């Protein structure tokens, strides 16, 4: 029986001043955030924002160039951490000459004492993958399914997925999402899901990490982030933003004819005759993606603890 518990006291990921360099400049710079354990966290940002770099650092595939990232309270890729983390890279690397069966065997051989053959095989069987087919001959969706089966078979406490659904048709995408959510429900697995398909995140993710330009823009519970923002619609003429907005943080503002539509972070009641409503996740993300200059916001649970302790 599912006895799913939030583990708000435990931390899946915690970055303090994290930076990682590319050949051409910084991929991540001065990132500080926290993702509590047991969450399904969306990692969102435009292409080149540093999502993949962040996941590579968390998976122990590359080093941070400054600051620190703790994974499940340990060093990324450390001996006590690597077996508890699954990572699915964007290009879903698999050995093309291996059969489906060989690939699952690899999971068993390289994860001694952890491998859950039943979980991995269930996912593969549901997709009717022929066990003796070579990976190189599978379709993109079948490869993704096999790669996910490998990630699940490890029984991870933290599952890092880089654009996992990008090449799936809607039916398979729904099935894979359901499988992911079932995994989260059964084992309280923390999932970090990098995506730029905003629609696939709604209803799936309860935590959000928005990165842009290598920095953290938004971090925290989706609900709290949504309720910290308002879409404001009303009549307004003239180019300058209404004076009554000065007390608040304006994320985006657009005037069409006499109508002004804005997303603001209210710092109290909003003066004037405005229709206000809570934004959808997609609205919130789009407004922040369109306005890279908007100040960042971290909810209390997303504040790194070690920084607070140090301060």
């Amino acid at each position, binding site marked *: 029986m599912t006895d799913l518990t939030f583990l708000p006291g435990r931390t899946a990921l915690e970055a303090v001043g994290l930076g990682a360099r590319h050949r051409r400049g910084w991929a991540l710079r001065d990132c500080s955030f926290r993702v509590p354990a047991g969450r399904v966290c969306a990692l969102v940002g435009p292409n080149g924002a540093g999502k993949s770099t962040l996941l590579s650092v968390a998976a122990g595939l590359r080093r941070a160039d400054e600051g620190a990232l703790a994974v499940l309270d340990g060093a990324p890729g450390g001996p006590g951490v*690597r077996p508890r983390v699954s990572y699915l890279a964007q290009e879903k*690397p698999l050995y093309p000459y291996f059969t489906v069966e060989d690939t699952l065997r690899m999971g068993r051989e*390289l994860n001694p004492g952890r491998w859950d053959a039943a979980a991995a095989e269930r996912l593969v069987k549901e997709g009717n993958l022929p066990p003796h087919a070579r990976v190189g001959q599978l379709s993109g969706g079948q490869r993704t399914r096999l790669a996910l089966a490998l990630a699940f078979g490890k029984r991870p406490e933290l599952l890092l997925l880089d654009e996992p659904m990008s090449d799936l048709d809607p039916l398979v995408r729904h099935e894979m999402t359901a499988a992911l959510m079932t995994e989260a429900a059964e084992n309280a697995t923390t999932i970090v899901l990098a995506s730029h398909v905003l629609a696939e995140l709604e209803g799936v993710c309860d935590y959000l990490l928005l990165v842009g330009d290598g920095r953290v823009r938004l971090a925290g519970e989706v609900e709290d982030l949504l309720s910290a923002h308002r879409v404001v619609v009303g009549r307004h003429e003239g180019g300058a933003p209404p004076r009554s907005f000065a007390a608040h943080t304006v994320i985006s503002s657009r005037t069409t004819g006499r109508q002004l539509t804005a997303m603001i972070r209210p710092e109290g009641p909003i003066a004037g005759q405005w229709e206000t409503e809570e934004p959808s996740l997609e609205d919130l993300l789009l407004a922040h993606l369109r306005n890279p200059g908007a100040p960042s916001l971290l909810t209390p649970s997303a504040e790194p603890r070690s920084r607070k302790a140090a301060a």
Partner: protein
Amino acid sequence: MSSLTLAPRGLTWLVLRQRRGAVWTGLAGLFVVVVQLVILRFALLDAVERHDLTGPDPSAGALADFRASYGDVLHYNGLLVQYLPLVVAMIVAGPMVARELESGTYKLAWTQSVTPARWLLAKLAVPAVAVLAGGSLLSAVYTWTWSAVPHELLPGQLWYHSFDMLGPAPVAGALAGIGLGAVAGLLVRRTTGAMAAVLVGYGLLGFALGRLRPRLIPPWTETTPEMPGLAGDDAWRFERGIITRAGERLAEPDCGIGVAPARCLAEHDADRWYLDYHPASHLWPLEWAEAGILLAVAALAGAAALRLVRRPLP
């Protein structure tokens, strides 16, 4: 049950499965070459005996026939042994290491429950065991077959010509090739580029070793007033020169064409000639000395490869 407990596990299984083609090709090739070398040995012995080639007066025709029939066969087998290290190095550099980095499949292995260092160790250890077992067998059988021929019958197969094909040197060379291949693969990270780098690197190593070889153990020296000849028995005469009255050695002094040796001595104010050589009995000490150097190269390259794989990691 025994086959189950002997079955490879973990990373060993992975490396063998990844290179399954090479494993079977290698085993089949080894079997064919070894069987054929054994047959060759008995054919050589039989031909020598049948035509009494080691007797006091072998027939010139029979000798020419023998050289034509067996010289090349033995030589090509020797080349297989000689180039084994290069082939091993290129396989490790390209398909085993660089291809994983190039295609991104290293991420698959590194994000299971094994560390990159252990992954690399398996990539080094599995071919090392294969080389120690298969390469040693091949080299031993070749040396055994080679030793069946009296040196005067096949002068091209004299020990110092066949040095790279005999005894422990090719086996140690293959071990060094594994280390160098891994370093090249990790540095170049492209399959063909890494293989090309190994080709160049191994060429340089071979050249350096060739220059070094005569001095690996102290040679014997003969000093004579007359200029010594370079031909003769199966000794490796690798340097000739003069010794000045001041005691200085001058290798192959440039006295111009047609100058009498005695005059040459006088020109350089020297009084005798010297000849550095290794008698045939030096073959095995030289082999082991070279093998020692190659093993040191293998160890250093292996350690460097481990450092390289750890460098970008947390």
